[in-house]
């Protein structure tokens, strides 16, 4: 039996949809189905992406001219604080959780997550915290930036800062509960025929991500508790006038918030590792290397945090240590990038929206990665610290990386989630607009930073105006790029072409069930008959075969043939 025959066999076995179906009301209630929760996470996070995006465009409109002629400086501080906090804690992290919730049980052949009720609880902590945080702009929003460094944060208004701390404690708790679920599900609930090393790479990356969440987030909670005491009870943990030490806050904050960068990017590394082999019709290059590099990134990510503090009076020997560990992270990341490129090399690449965004991800992320290595070096970092160079770097990683990855994931799994295809021309328009807008917005910021324009300030020197205008135009293009996406999603969800169970002819388990999957995912639990990425590897499990790296088993165009 060839792979194609086996695939068509699994397909015909569930043409009808027996059992109860999902009602639209389920998506607004405390539902314990991981697929409902996954969609809830994704839709909610996209709503906050919209809110944070509007804030970003308000910031860019203010920065179009050197004077503060659009919003007041206080409002500017509030906007940039909320923009950062919302984009990180209510957009990228929940979007990753949404994808993980939807995909992990399907990919490992489980019927649900390990703790469905806790899963629903974790989701329902987000809306109250998010709404509270977003609405705080109407009365008294936090102003101290998403990092909320004391003593600034304990001097800029108790209400806003209190809301910020409270929301973050709730969001952090939600994130921890989610991570307990992912960790347990991936380790204990795989179908018996799936060893760890036959697991889709997305599950590997989520394993690494949940470990980071479980180790890092509680420390942030500790820092926030102490900060709340400083703010509300008048203690002086971080207040130098009372004998406290603000550097301790920075250490605790970055012990979480640097790993948080990997919490935001690792799930998307997994997504890209899924998408590229499917749309290149080739086995993934270096499965184990990609899997273990996720774990390596996760481990190294925990010992680099003080590179955010090179200008905080960190002693020289400590700076050296953190500079070296930070640069070492480029190695596992580079392994992934090379593996993706090698997977695409000579493959039959389908240039659809999912694959375009995945390729965009690789390109943009590499730019962000390179500027990351630049700012890792102490002398350079001291020069560009607190300038737009850092802003450019982080947006290349988080927009060019994470956001591109989330879009790629949406285009790739939309047929599975809704049972309908997306509109490809609209998706391609969306990709082109996003790519242009993103580079136009953030590329000039590198130059601005090198010329010394400070970040987080509404006023700036008139010499920076031309480049700032470019950035602002780019940000408007990004705003426009959301339109084809929104139209595409809503229209395709209602009227899109029927997708069938496996429109991409993919091999991972989530495609071996109906689209959208039935309530308990699989009628009978699936049995692995091929690896997750055995594209173009025709074989029967019982066969005795030459090693898989031998040239005759490679596709015609493969680099190895």
């Amino acid at each position, binding site marked *: 039996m060839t792979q194609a025959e086996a695939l068509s066999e699994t397909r015909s076995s569930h043409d009808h949809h027996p059992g109860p179906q999902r009602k639209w009301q389920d998506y607004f209630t405390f539902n314990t189905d991981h697929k409902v929760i996954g969609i809830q996470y994704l839709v909610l996070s996209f709503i906050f992406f919209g809110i944070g995006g509007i804030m970003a465009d308000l910031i860019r409109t203010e920065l179009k001219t050197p004077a503060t002629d659009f919003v007041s400086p206080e409002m500017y501080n509030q906007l940039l604080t909320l923009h950062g906090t919302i984009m990180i804690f209510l957009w990228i992290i929940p979007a990753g959780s949404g994808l993980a919730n939807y995909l992990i049980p399907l990919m490992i052949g489980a019927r649900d997550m*390990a*703790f469905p009720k*806790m899963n629903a609880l974790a989701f329902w902590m987000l809306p109250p915290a998010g709404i509270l945080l977003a609405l705080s702009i109407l009365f008294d929003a936090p102003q101290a930036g998403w990092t909320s460094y004391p003593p600034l944060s304990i001097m800029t208004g108790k209400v806003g800062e209190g809301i910020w701390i409270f929301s973050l404690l709730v969001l952090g708790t939600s994130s*921890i509960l989610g*991570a*307990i*679920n992912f*960790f*347990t599900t991936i380790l*204990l*609930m795989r179908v*018996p*025929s*799936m*060893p760890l*090393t036959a697991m889709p790479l997305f599950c590997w990356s989520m394993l690494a991500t949940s470990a980071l969440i*479980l180790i*890092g*987030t*509680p*420390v942030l*909670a*500790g*820092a926030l*508790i*102490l900060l709340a*005491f400083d703010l509300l*009870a008048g*203690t002086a*943990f971080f207040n130098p006038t*009372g*004998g*406290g*030490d603000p550097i*301790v806050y920075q*250490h*605790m904050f970055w012990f979480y918030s640097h790993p948080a960068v990997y919490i935001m990017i690792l799930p998307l590394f997994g997504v890209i590792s899924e998408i590229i082999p499917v749309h290149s019709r080739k*086995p993934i*290059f*270096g*499965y*184990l290397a990609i899997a273990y590099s996720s774990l390596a990134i996760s481990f190294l990510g925990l010992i680099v945090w003080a590179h955010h503090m090179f200008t905080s009076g960190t002693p020289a020997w400590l700076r050296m240590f953190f500079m070296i560990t930070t640069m070492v992270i480029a190695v596992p990341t580079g392994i992934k990038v090379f593996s993706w490129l090698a997977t695409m090399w000579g493959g039959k690449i389908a240039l659809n929206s999912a694959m375009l965004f995945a390729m965009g991800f690789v390109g943009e992320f590499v730019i962000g990665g390179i500027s990351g290595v630049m700012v890792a070096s102490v002398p350079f970092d001291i020069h560009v610290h607190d300038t737009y160079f850092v802003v450019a770097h982080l947006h290349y990683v988080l927009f060019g990386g994470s956001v591109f990855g989330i879009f790629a994931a949406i285009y790739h799994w939309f047929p599975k989630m809704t049972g309908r295809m997306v509109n490809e021309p609209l998706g391609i328009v969306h990709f082109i607009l996003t790519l242009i807008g993103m580079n136009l917005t953030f590329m000039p910021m590198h130059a601005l930073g090198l010329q010394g324009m400070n970040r987080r300030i509404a006023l700036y020197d008139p010499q920076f105006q031309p480049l700032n205008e470019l950035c602002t135009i780019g940000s408007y293009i990004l705003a426009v790029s959301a339109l084809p996406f929104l139209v595409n999603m809503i229209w395709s969800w209602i009227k899109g072409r029927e997708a069938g169970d496996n429109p991409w002819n993919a091999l991972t388990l989530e495609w071996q069930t109906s689209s959208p999957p039935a309530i308990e995912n699989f009628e*009978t639990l699936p*049995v*692995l*008959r*091929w*690896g*997750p*990425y*055995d594209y173009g590897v025709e*074989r029967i499990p*019982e*066969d005795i*075969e030459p*090693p*898989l*790296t031998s040239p005759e088993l*490679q596709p015609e165009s493969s680099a*190895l043939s």
Partner: protein
Amino acid sequence: MQGSTVDPAQAALNYHAEAVATGHEEHPDHRIFGIIVFLAAESMIFLGLFMAYLTFRAVYPTWPPEGTPERELLLPGINTLILISSSFVIHQADTAVKKDNVGGLRKWFAITALMGAVFLAGQLYEYHNLEFGLKTNLYASTFYVLTGFHGLHVFFGLCLILGVLWRSRIKGHYSSQHHFGVEAAELYWHFVDVVWIVLFILLYLL
């Protein structure tokens, strides 16, 4: 590195194992594993706070800062003994329920609850009689926040124990086969106990 990651021989074996295993659809119980993962995360909060405390201590020229009143060791010492021995007491309950002895479970849990309550009362008594307040100096602040945060955990553990006691009045609710609640409460209690040992050494002895 390129190619399949599925070993055909192993897949065939697994296929067989699964064929044997299918037929009963019971949901496997991963709750104890989940509790352990949760406690691991929880311990990171304490670790973070401990590291903050140690940093404050290292940065200050003298620790505790000049003028901090002397601390009494007798009461916290007794409290520590009570909490540590309660861990052994609660383990008796676990042994009892594994022998289907629900009466024993109730007895040992009740004693543990009492010991936990005495610990909390002792803690409050100590707060009441200390000569420094929350805002006296950095040492005082860390002292109150760390012990208070731990006390909150003791209180939560106490609630878990009382919850198990409440449920155990239903006949057959806990047995040698079904006693997740008992094990979870016990694990949590041990965790709270271990945290206290570290806390006691850091705050009182060092």
